[in-house]
């Protein structure tokens, strides 16, 4: 417990929309040095990219359920677009589809951020708070990775030149 308190106190605070003050590797190294092996393994199970429903208890179970619902919403949005019908969504708003892909992604990330913020209320110096910190760090890092110039270069590298083509 004291190690967890020390760890939480030593971590810089995260602000949505700002550059991450710590990298994921730095965070994991710090966590590994302060947590027991079991707690560190538990922390490692949680990632926004690979959330398995039921991998947590209490609030964390709620979070994994929300992410599962989000994935279901994404699937429904894709199917509805394919079938040219109105999507039936659980969490996301239908108005999302009117936004451009960046605005849409930012809206989804904002929703995830808000859900995580709700989850950490009253969970001071607990594993829940640490896991929420990790997931928020993932979100902040992801938002920070959105760069117009770099994005244009990535697109250009795919569409220019045409490689592996045969006429």
């Amino acid at each position: 417990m004291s190690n967890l308190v020390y760890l939480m106190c030593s971590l810089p605070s995260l602000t949505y929309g700002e550059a991450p003050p710590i990298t994921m590797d730095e965070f994991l190294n710090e966590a590994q040095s302060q947590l027991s092996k079991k707690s560190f393994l538990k922390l490692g199970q949680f990632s926004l990219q690979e959330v398995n429903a039921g991998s947590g208890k209490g609030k964390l179970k709620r979070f994994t359920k929300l992410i599962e619902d989000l994935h279901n919403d994404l699937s429904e949005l894709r199917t509805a677009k394919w079938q040219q019908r109105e999507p039936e969504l659980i969490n996301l708003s239908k108005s999302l589809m009117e936004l451009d892909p960046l605005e849409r992604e930012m809206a989804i990330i904002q929703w995830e951020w808000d859900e995580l913020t709700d989850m950490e209320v009253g969970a001071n110096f607990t594993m829940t708070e640490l896991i929420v910190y990790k997931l928020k760090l993932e979100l902040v890092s992801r938002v920070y990775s959105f760069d117009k110039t770099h994005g244009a270069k990535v697109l250009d590298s795919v569409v220019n030149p045409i490689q592996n083509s045969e006429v």
Partner: protein
Amino acid sequence: MAGMKIKYTKTERARQKKILKVSQRMLPLFEAMEKSLMVTINGIAEQIEKIEEAIERNNKKAKPWLAVFSDNWVDVSQLISVNKIVTRPVDVAGVRVQQYEKVDFNVATIENDMPLWVDDAIELMQEQLQLKAEIKCLEEQIELLEEELLDVRARVKLFENRRIPNAQMAIRKIGQKLQDDERLMIATAKVVKTKNE
């Protein structure tokens, strides 16, 4: 014409007349071919311009959301690649070229946990790759047509500057020589006749 040895015979004159006739008949055909090739090349160049405009329009449309392509969760280069550009051979202005049909893509399966922007990105990349493949085919067509145009222009110049003037000159010279010979023959005959009398 310089250095060309002319046989001053009626047969040669007939041969040169035939060459002139054929050349005068062929020249307009080659000129028409040259014009047709130029029109076709210009048409293809215009087509390329239109496709480039479409590419630019797509880029402009995507500009506000290009930042997602640098998403650290997704490796865009793994989403799509060109497997093959499918073309079919066609004759354009008498030249066999490859016409663009479609692009055969390798597209990654979109999983439910993939961000939603991936769908739009794949759509955009597919469209841009298709348009660029079309430009590539059209540029290759222009290359082949320009080669043919050079060949046709060389033929036009050959007919205009060599064959027709040479034949005309040969016909004129042979005609003069034959006329001179005829006059000489008549004059000689008259002299012989006068002497005999």
